[in-house]
Each structure stands twice: as structure tokens, then as C-alpha cells.
């Protein structure tokens, strides 16, 4: 009896394994997302997921890719932890057989994963992490692509805004004490150096620090006439509160980390006038895609308006990234990693996207689809994000 059961079990298992092979042509093409969906940066993971899902729904509504195969999203949580990031990268490719994997907010995680994508020959599409060396990793062929900011361009952009629009020459740098802060310290010094400007002070703070007045006082006493800040939302909010506390009304130019949380709510009126970098803003006049995305956000996730879009750059970057990947899969005529990678580097035609119109966004030398010209500067005004002119 037992032997008969065992035999049946074997037959069943065999059937289960052979079935997918037969049905492969109609199988969905799986797209992975390896990002922080828990912890302090969970909002960014959720935002990226929304952007991907909306873009996938659009592609699937038009019949999917490769003659009728639907796109399907598989999500794994990296918990902001590089070791975990490597494990889930392998799991997504080896077990879930994802064709392409999108990445999340943490530069540290993305850097740790770079060798894995090359070993498994699976294209990676960065939707947030801005660390310069993620995409410029020195590998050839390079499997890492990005539709997001790059710290090097971002720092150039911030310096350009401070010197040419604000016309200020004595920056005080206020950076978070992490690898991301470090990456920007290098970039900011490089671009300031090109304008023969030396920061009057470089100050750091740790995550969860409650009071930044000492650092701000030192910058103030050193004669800074503006602050360039690299911070995430909670610490950025404490900086703004501390600045009000010492009564220093100096202009603040910030990297985009403060948009990954509830900066406006945390600071109230104090956020007024803080400028920061974005790749896209759902405020103001929207192109067709912008309207479609906002509508999908409303229908699917109950987002009532642009002020309720959490971590907007995550959604915008992921949305365009997903469409570019879908085009590459079509062009490659295959869901195989190496072929998609080649197609991404040689995308034909143009894609009228949310952030911009992409014409051959990637080349063997350039794996960042967005460069400083594509960034926008925005400012908090009464709890709303308003674009600022760069001239």
C-alpha cells in the first residue's frame, strides 16, 4: 500500500515538473523587485512597486510581450541589508526565474548585488539607489542599468543650482554619516572644486539624531551662506527644526532623500522654502502619461491627489524603467537575460515616457537613462511641491 502511494506521489511530482515546460510559451514573463518593503524606507519600496505594477498593467492590457505573454511581478524584501540583498537576488533569478530585476533605495544593497547580476547574467534596473558606482561598475558587458538619479550628476546639479541660481559661494555641507553621505561628499567636493569653491564646513549626523543645532551652529559660525544637505526624511526634518531653533534663515538645497518619507508633515510650516532635487513631480501640469499614472494610482491605491503620492520618484522611475524593459524584451524577441541586456543598450525608436522622451537611453558606455539635464529642482510651498526654474 505504502509503495503504491509513493509511486503515485512520484508520478504526481513528475507531472508537476514537466507541465511548465510544455506550457512555457504562454507562461508569464516574471519581473523581480528586490527592494526594502519593510523598515524605515518601506515607503520607497511601495512606491516602486506601484510604478512597476501600473506600467505592467498597461503592457498586459495591450497583450503583454512576446506574442501574448503577460508580465508578472515577484517581490522580495531586502530589508535594507546588503547580505539579504544578495540572497534574494539569487532567489529571484534561480528559483523564480525572473528575466529582469528592479532594485530599491539602498545604495549599499545595490552595490553588493552588482557581482550577482553579472554572474547570473540577469539585467538589473535601478529605480532609486543613486550611488555613482552602481551603474558605473567597470564591468563589461555591464548588466546594471538605471532610470534614477546618479549621485555624481545629482551633486553637479545641486552645485549648479546653488552657484548659478542662488548665486551663493560659501556652502556648508550637512551629510548623513553613511556610505550614501560619503558618496555625495566626494561628488560635491568634485563639482564645487571645479568652480574653485571650498565648502566652509562639512558636518555629519547619524540616523535618528534628534537635534542638529550643534552642526548648524558650526556651519553658521564658519560663515556659510547656504546649506547643501544629504539626508533622508526623518533626519532632514530634524535639521529644518534645528535651523529654526537657532534662528538661521539660510537657503537649503537638498538631495532627494527627504522625499522618501513624510518630510512636509514632520516639519509643518518650517519646510517652506526648502529646495530639493527630483526626477519627476506629480504636481503641476501633467503629460498624458502623468495623467494616466495619477488615475491608476487613484483607482488602484486610493491616492486622491499629487500630495498623497508617497515617495513620487520611486513610482516615476519604476514606471519608465518598466516600459523600457518591456520594449527591450520585445526587441530582443526573448526573455533571456543576455539578449535583453543587448537590446537595452541598443533600444530602437523612441519611448515617450513619464519623465522624458527616451531616445536610445542606454549605450555600452552610459547606463544611466537620466542625467543632470533631466532632473528638476522643486521647493516646498505650503506643503506642496512646486518646480523651480533653473535659470
Amino acid at each position, binding site marked *: 500500500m505504502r509503495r503504491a502511494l509513493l509511486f503515485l506521489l512520484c508520478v504526481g511530482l513528475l507531472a508537476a515538473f514537466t507541465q511548465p515546460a510544455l506550457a512555457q510559451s504562454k507562461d508569464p514573463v516574471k519581473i523581480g523587485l528586490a527592494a526594502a518593503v*519593510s*523598515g*524605515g*524606507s*518601506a*515607503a520607497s519600496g511601495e512606491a516602486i512597486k506601484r510604478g512597476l505594477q501600473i506600467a505592467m498593467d498597461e503592457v498586459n492590457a495591450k497583450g503583454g510581450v512576446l506574442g501574448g505573454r503577460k508580465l508578472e511581478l515577484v517581490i522580495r524584501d531586502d530589508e535594507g541589508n546588503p547580505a539579504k540583498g544578495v540572497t534574494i537576488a539569487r532567489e529571484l533569478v534561480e528559483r523564480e526565474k525572473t528575466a529582469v530585476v528592479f532594485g530599491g533605495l539602498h545604495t549599499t544593497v545595490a552595490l553588493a548585488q552588482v557581482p550577482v547580476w553579472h554572474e547570473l547574467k540577469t539585467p538589473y534596473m535601478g529605480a532609486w539607489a543613486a550611488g555613482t558606482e552602481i551603474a558605473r561598475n567597470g564591468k563589461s558587458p555591464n548588466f546594471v542599468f538605471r532610470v534614477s538619479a546618479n549621485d555624481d550628476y545629482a551633486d553637479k546639479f545641486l552645485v549648479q543650482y546653488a552657484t548659478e541660481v542662488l548665486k551663493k559661494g560659501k556652502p556648508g555641507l550637512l551629510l548623513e*554619516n553613511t556610505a550614501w553621505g560619503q558618496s555625495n561628499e566626494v561628488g560635491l567636493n568634485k563639482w564645487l572644486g571645479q568652480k574653485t569653491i571650498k565648502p566652509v564646513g562639512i558636518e*555629519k*549626523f*547619524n540616523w*535618528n*539624531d*534628534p*537635534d542638529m*543645532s*550643534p*552642526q548648524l*551652529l*558650526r556651519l553658521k559660525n564658519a560663515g556659510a551662506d547656504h546649506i547643501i544637505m544629504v539626508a533622508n*526624511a*526623518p533626519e532632514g*526634518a*530634524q535639521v529644518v*527644526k534645528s535651523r*529654526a*531653533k*537657532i*534662528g538661521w534663515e539660510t537657503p537649503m538645497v537638498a538631495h532627494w532623500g527627504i522625499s522618501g*518619507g*513624510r518630510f512636509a*508633515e*514632520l*516639519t*509643518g*510650516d518650517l519646510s517652506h522654502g526648502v529646495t530639493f532635487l527630483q526626477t519627476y513631480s506629480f504636481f503641476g501640469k501633467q503629460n498624458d502619461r502623468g495623467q494616466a499614472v495619477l488615475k491608476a494610482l487613484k483607482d488602484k491605491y486610493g491616492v486622491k491627489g499629487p500630495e498623497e503620492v508617497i515617495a513620487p520618484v520611486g513610482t516615476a522611475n519604476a514606471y519608465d524603467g518598466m516600459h523600457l524593459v518591456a520594449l527591450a524584451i520585445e526587441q530582443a524577441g526573448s526573455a533571456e537575460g543576455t539578449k535583453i541586456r543587448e537590446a537595452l543598450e541598443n533600444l530602437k525608436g523612441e519611448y515617450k515616457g513619464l519623465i522624458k522622451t527616451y531616445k536610445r537611453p542606454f549605450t555600452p558606455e552610459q547606463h544611466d537613462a537620466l542625467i543632470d539635464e533631466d532632473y528638476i529642482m522643486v521647493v516646498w510651498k505650503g506643503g506642496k511641491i512646486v518646480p523651480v526654474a533653473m535659470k
Partner: protein
Amino acid sequence: MYGLVALGYHITWVTSRTMNFSQGHAVMAGAVVAFACYVGLGWPLWITVLATLVVLAILGVGLERVAVRPFFRAASPAWLLSTIACGIIAENAAMLLFGKDARAFPSALTQKPILVGGAGFYAQELLIPVVGLLLMGGVQFFYHRTAYGKQLKAVAYNPEAAGLMGIHIPRAVMFAYGLSAVLAGIAGILLAPVLNVAATMGTIIGLTALAVAIIGGLTSAPGIVVAGVGYGLVESFVAGYLSTGAREIVGFALVILILVVRPWGLLGARPARRV
């Protein structure tokens, strides 16, 4: 600010020679519950405060029942781990229920800073030490002047004798934990507008407060308040003149130094030596 949280360690320590190592998470719970009532449900402030303190008292009593009493009886130090475990559970539960973002707790006292010369502060920041001192006074009064307070102290000195004198020991310890959690709740409500409300806010507050409690002397409420103020001053001094990176290094080095020189704390009672 740290003194207020550290008093919570003191209360359970003097009663039961145990403490809730997750006192910081109780502060977080206070802030989160207050946020839920005040912002989430839109209750008036006084009901919010009342509701928060009731919830915290229940949590404190529950913690004692679940994580301390079984081990207290067995005279094993496992309460140390079990209270930490409860803290981690609380943090993750808060992440699930409350969300992972830091949220702002609106307060009339943090709208505009008061500027004095070059430096300024928020009225809320002034309120914290005032309440801290008042509570310290209250705790002192309770332990030294009221019958029940004296009973609690008696439990600490000699549980067996106290039990024989008709003091219900489990109830006394339970009361101490409830009171300690209520204090943490008050700290949470006071700190929420200054620090923002986040599920992860508890750990560093709890650790620093533990350092303060040890510096001040676990058995001495005034010592803890003095140490709390002193520690805050040292922190801002180091942050102001050295760097923020050095703040924790100097602070916790100080703890070790004081443990070496005065293991019973600044104002703690020197334990009698058995010869």
C-alpha cells in the same frame, strides 16, 4: 528627558530588583498610542493623555505577568532577555499597526521656537524637565512618605520578610511595573512632538536612559534626575565642540568610568559590605 525614562528603571528596580530592559519601547508605545488617539481618532488632548496612560499601565502590568513573574519566582535573570524580547515584539507590532514612517505629533508648543540671543528652544523642550522634576518629586514622596510606597521598598529589601508581614509581593511588583510603564507613557507623550513618532524610536532612548539610570544610581531617584540633566549637557557639549560621532563614544565611556569608580552610581546608596 532621559531622566524621566530612567526613573522607570528605578521604580521596578527598587521594588523587585528587576527591570524592563525595553523601557525605551514603552516610551515608543506611549508616543504611538497617543498619536493614534490624538491624530488618528481626533480625540481631545486630555482624553488622549488619559487613554494613553491607561493603555500603558495595562501593558506594564501585562509585561510583568508574562515576561517577569515566571522568572522572578525562579530567581533567574531570564527576565532580562524576556523583557528585551517583549520590546522587539512591541517594535515590530508597532511597525505593522502604525506603519514604518516617522510621523509628526502636532503640539502648540513646537510651532515656533523661542529665540534668546543666538540660540533658541521650543516651549515643549522646557516642559520636559519641569514635568521630569515634578514626577521625580512625586516618586520620592510616594516611596518615602506613603504606606504603600514603603511597602514596595520593603519588598525590595527582603521579599520574604515583607511577605511575612502581610505584603502581597506579586501585587507590589505588578504595581511597580504598571507605574514604570505609565512614566514611560508620559515621557512618550512629551517627547512625541520633539522627536516625531516612529516605531523605531525606542531603542536608543531606552539604552541612553539605562546609562543615565546606572550613572545616577539605580536606587536613587534624585541621582537619576541629576544624571539625566548632566548626561544631556555632556552630550550637547561633545556634539557642539567635538562632533556628533563622538557623542555616543564619550557618553558610554562615561558609563564605564563611573561603573569602575562608583559602581553604585553618583547618588546611589553604597551597598553594605558583607565581611
